């Protein structure tokens, strides 16, 4: 499938991040159109488009919006999850850097649809330049009368707060994000009640990913039929695919859902010269790895699901034959241990033990019984914690063991860095010599 620059279409304009740059291509034109419509029509349009959440879970966006109770007398909130922290995910950060106004226009349209007068963009704290860009865009939008009281004489009010996090992967989990936004430790809440009923400040709240919200202005502008010409019936639309790792041209490639990894690899110049693909991860470290034989499977929610993995964030990581699978898995497990919030015992304790055992495999000091022990611990964590972090921590190991058992066996006698020279896997191999 050909590339379809839509959200990325004008990123090469020098001023794409400014109000002037955004307006040059019809930016904010959908505000008046939307504010003159019935909010339910906006929800129905998004429902009809079939847009699914771009943050990883793929929940239908219009349906999520329709769960917000109407005429309940409570304030409603829109919260944008801009806490992009999943290893491998790197598409919301460039979007906010290059075109923050698309996100803000999306916030206006979405807030109007769900009858919210307050929206928040929760951006991870470790990206000050992105926070600057989004905050500056919000100030421009206020000055232009696109935010604040009585937007464009419509009677609709919207306040938007750009909020910086402070370093915690768990805050990408929507209920942990809400706790964090309320000024607490970012720990997940028990569901139900779901945020649509009792979210921020115990009021109805919609939490959407950055890319999801940035899609809204294009859907309102072009309609559901236009949107559905991209992708498949169950995965309509287009996606910011961020291709990283051992490829010639890592970067952002916007293409219809259903594009294959082979096509994306082709756009990205292929696996780096002189090397071959070993394994790849379609959408963040929390989804099971895939192999070269899966390159022709369409990148959709349903096709990835059928392979036993997930589309996730749609940000494939590519690893060539120089990579030690044990080292890769060990480092991801270490990440989950570091980021476990500590609320649920299976995740807190389980990741702690997993990390130590995986380190033994990496050092070549594991016992053969450790192979099954890791598998057992993973099974004790999965499904036994409040949120998906525990599930994510227990995900990478099993497929890695299935495809590369011999590397784990080797971890009982030989360190990973002897089996795979770490220098060979770096992008600056030549410079190191």
């Amino acid at each position, binding site marked *: 499938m050909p590339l*379809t*620059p839509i959200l*990325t*279409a004008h*990123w090469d304009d020098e001023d794409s*991040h400014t109000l002037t740059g955004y307006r040059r291509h019809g930016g904010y034109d*959908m505000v008046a*159109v939307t504010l*003159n*419509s019935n909010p339910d*029509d906006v929800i129905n349009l998004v429902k009809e488009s079939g847009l699914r959440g771009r943050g990883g879970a793929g929940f239908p966006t219009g349906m999520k919006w329709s769960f917000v109770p109407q005429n309940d007398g409570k304030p409603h909130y829109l919260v944008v999850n801009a806490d*992009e*922290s999943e*290893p491998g995910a*790197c598409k919301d*950060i*460039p979007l906010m850097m*290059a075109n923050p106004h698309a996100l803000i226009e999306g916030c206006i349209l979405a807030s109007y649809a769900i009858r919210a007068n307050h929206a928040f963009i929760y951006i*991870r*704290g*470790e*990206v*000050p*330049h992105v*926070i*600057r*860009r989004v*905050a500056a865009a919000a100030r421009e939008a206020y000055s232009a009368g696109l935010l604040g009281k009585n937007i464009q004489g419509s009677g609709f009010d919207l306040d938007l707060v*750009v*909020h*910086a*996090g*402070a*370093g*915690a*992967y768990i805050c990408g989990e929507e209920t942990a994000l809400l706790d964090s936004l309320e*000024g607490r430790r970012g720990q997940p809440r028990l569901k139900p009640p779901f945020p649509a009923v009792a979210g921020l*400040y115990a009021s109805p709240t919609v939490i959407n990913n950055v890319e999801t919200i940035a899609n809204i202005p294009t859907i309102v*502008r072009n*309609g559901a039929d*236009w949107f559905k*010409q991209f992708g498949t019936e169950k995965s309509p639309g287009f996606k910011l695919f961020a291709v*990283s*790792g051992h490829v010639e041209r*890592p*970067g*952002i*490639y*916007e293409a219809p859902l259903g594009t294959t990894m082979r096509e994306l690899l082709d756009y990205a110049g292929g696996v780096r010269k002189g090397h071959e693909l070993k394994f790849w991860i379609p959408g963040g470290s929390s989804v099971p790895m895939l192999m070269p034989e899966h390159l022709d499977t369409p990148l959709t929610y349903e096709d990835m699901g059928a392979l036993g993995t997930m589309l996730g964030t749609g940000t494939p990581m590519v*690893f060539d034959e120089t*990579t030690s699978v044990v*080292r*890769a898995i060990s*480092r*991801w497990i270490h*990440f989950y241990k570091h980021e476990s*919030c500590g609320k649920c015992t299976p995740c807190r304790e389980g990741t702690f033990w997993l990390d130590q055992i995986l380190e033994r495999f990496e050092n070549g000091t594991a016992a053969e019984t450790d192979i099954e022990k890791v598998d057992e611990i993973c099974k004790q964590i999965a499904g036994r914690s409040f949120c998906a972090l525990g599930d994510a921590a227990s995900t990478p190991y099993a497929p890695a063991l299935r495809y590369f058992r011999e590397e784990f066996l080797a971890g009982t006698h030989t360190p990973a860095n002897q089996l795979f020279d*770490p220098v060979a*896997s770096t*992008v600056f191999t030549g410079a190191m010599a």
Partner: protein
Amino acid sequence: MSLTDQTIVDARECAARYPDSRSALLPLLHLVQSAEGTVTSDGIALCADVLGLTTAEVAGVATFYTMYKRHKVGRYHVGVCTNTLCAVLGGDAIWDALSERLGVGHDEVTADGTISLERIECQAACTHAPVMTANWEFLDDMDVPRALEVVEKLRAGEPVMSTRGPRIGTFQEIERSLAGFDDGLANEGGKDVRMLAGLDYAKQHGMSAPAGPAHSPLSVAKTEG
């Protein structure tokens, strides 16, 4: 710089942004770090005072998040991503080289107080691996010689530009930006070949998305209605 009456004024300004003032606690802790360089007991007391919380509640939050430091970091807090992808592509080698050159490990500061090092987790810049940060500004597509050059320049007080952002400010300056105070730097830098990879490819190969209808279905419905 330390906590002053102005800090309290700024803290109240942060609190006023939210429907519920407690939501300002994260920005307030960034503000405290901008004034004190770290989260001090006085800073915790200030947050508690402004937001009507106990110091225990504030400390409980401050200790949860990795960006809040309970001991001094360097004037330039340097991060090296050692999560899997960056580690494999060269992050581990960069880490080893920096740690050896500076003589400090994870979460430690050089004796002159200029540089602290942290092994950081994924920075959402995997297309730019291996990634480093200095006071959280992106230093993309790094290698060992450039990483060493960056820290030497920072140590010497020479200007270092972020690869997708402004000249790197001090830790305290950037913490103030994170508390939500405009530093006027939003227009600096921002783009590179990685972000534009797909768009460039599409333009070179004549690929584009089909145009939509002339009018939004919402305005059409309005007209017909």
